[in-house]
């Protein structure tokens, strides 16, 4: 267990330390949200209708940003060999890495999301739901995104490839989150959307580490 703790601490320090950690994703998210009114006009009715959806989609896109380096960095400098021969199976390493990605990128994004949706004329009552869907959705985006990062190991132009590989897999969580937000906005019960989103996130956390480990072993082979 000591090894796993050391790994989690290391992953967190790498995620928060190098490359500005959440700053990069937050800056991207903010600029995306800022550009919407410039592109689509600013009258509150239109913004109010489109705003939460765009804020939610922005969350998914922003979580793609620092994914490429999740495994690539260790793969390039030989640390992945060490991690593959460690005291815990590679699946646990993948879980720790994706978890650190969630804490370093998706969680801060979820906390910042209300600011974005307010800016896009969403009612203030939507804030708790925005954070909740941001956290649950963030979990799904981090783990499915981590899978894309592992699959793209050793490929050229990895960042773009991760997006192309991963975005189709984002369809269900995006639908569920948007449905929950929509329901909350017009007063009906967001429970179904949230439950579905939570189910998808749980499946992602449970299943993707297996595929991530297989992808890493494939890249090391």
């Amino acid at each position, binding site marked *: 267990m000591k090894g796993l703790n050391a790994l989690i601490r290391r992953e967190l320090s790498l995620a928060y330390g190098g490359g500005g950690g959440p700053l990069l994703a937050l800056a991207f998210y903010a600029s995306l949200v800022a550009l919407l009114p410039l592109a689509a006009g600013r009258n509150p009715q239109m913004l109010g209708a489109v705003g939460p959806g765009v804020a939610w989609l922005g969350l998914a896109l922003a979580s793609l940003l620092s994914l490429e380096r999740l495994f690539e960095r260790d793969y390039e400098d030989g640390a992945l060999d060490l991690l593959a021969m460690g005291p815990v199976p590679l699946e646990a390493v993948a879980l720790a890495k994706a978890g650190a990605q969630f804490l370093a990128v998706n969680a801060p994004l979820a906390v910042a999301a209300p600011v974005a949706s307010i800016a896009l004329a969403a009612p203030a009552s939507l804030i708790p739901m925005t954070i909740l869907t941001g956290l649950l959705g963030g979990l799904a985006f981090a783990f499915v995104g981590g899978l894309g990062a592992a699959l793209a190991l*050793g490929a*050229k*132009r990895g960042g773009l490839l991760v997006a192309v590989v991963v*975005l*189709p*897999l984002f369809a*269900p969580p995006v639908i569920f989150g948007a449905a929950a937000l929509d329901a909350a906005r017009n007063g009906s019960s967001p429970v179904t959307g949230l439950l579905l989103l939570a189910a998808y996130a749980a499946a992602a956390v449970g299943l993707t580490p297996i595929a991530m480990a297989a992808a890493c072993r494939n890249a090391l082979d």
Partner: protein
Amino acid sequence: MRLPRQLEFLSLPDRFMAVSAWLAPTIGALAVLLLEFGLWFGFKVPPDYQQGATVLIMFIHVPAAWLSMFGYVCLAVSSFLSLVFRHALADAAAKACAPLGAGFTALALATGSLWGRPMWGAWWVWDARLTSVLVLLLFYLGYIALRASIEDENRAGRAAAILALVGAVNLPVVHWSVNWWNTLHQGSSVFRVGGPTLAAVYLIPLLLMALGYTAAFGALWLVRIRAELWRRKARTLSLQAANR
């Protein structure tokens, strides 16, 4: 003493090459036959009371949409065999299958849009079925992109196989979630495709066309696998020549 040329040639997975040599043209011929009958019957059906003659487009749209899903099943099965049993032939089959499946998916979207245009007055409507076929196309493109951007062929094959299996697990979820999403935004799409409401007279040509499409897919897939195996054989030979 060197192997005579024929035996040398058979060093490929010979049983497959020998079998597919006659199987591919046979299935191809069968496909042509089925498609001819399908079209012949098709153009004899009465116009639909609602859709008029555009029901003819259904005969080429529905089989293409069916093939887009069937193609992904083939891709997932060959990926599973290649990943779990490290079967080189299955890997070649998966690589050969993806562009084919993507092609038929794109065809399904194009014909679907042409079919929907007179009904809905728009070239593209976010109808549940068309949307999940579109996401399926994105899965194909993700597979092809992943496989194309990793140089080492063996590693690319295995990474893409993992993605295909993850995709196969996710597709039912995507399909269900898009349908659920459709019920939330119940738009104007009253457009019913296939299913019990279809008049019997349309079923025969539709079935013939679907079988014809599937046979064509099978024949093309075999041809593409043969091409892939020859390409690999040529690469091995040229590598050996370089090292001699």
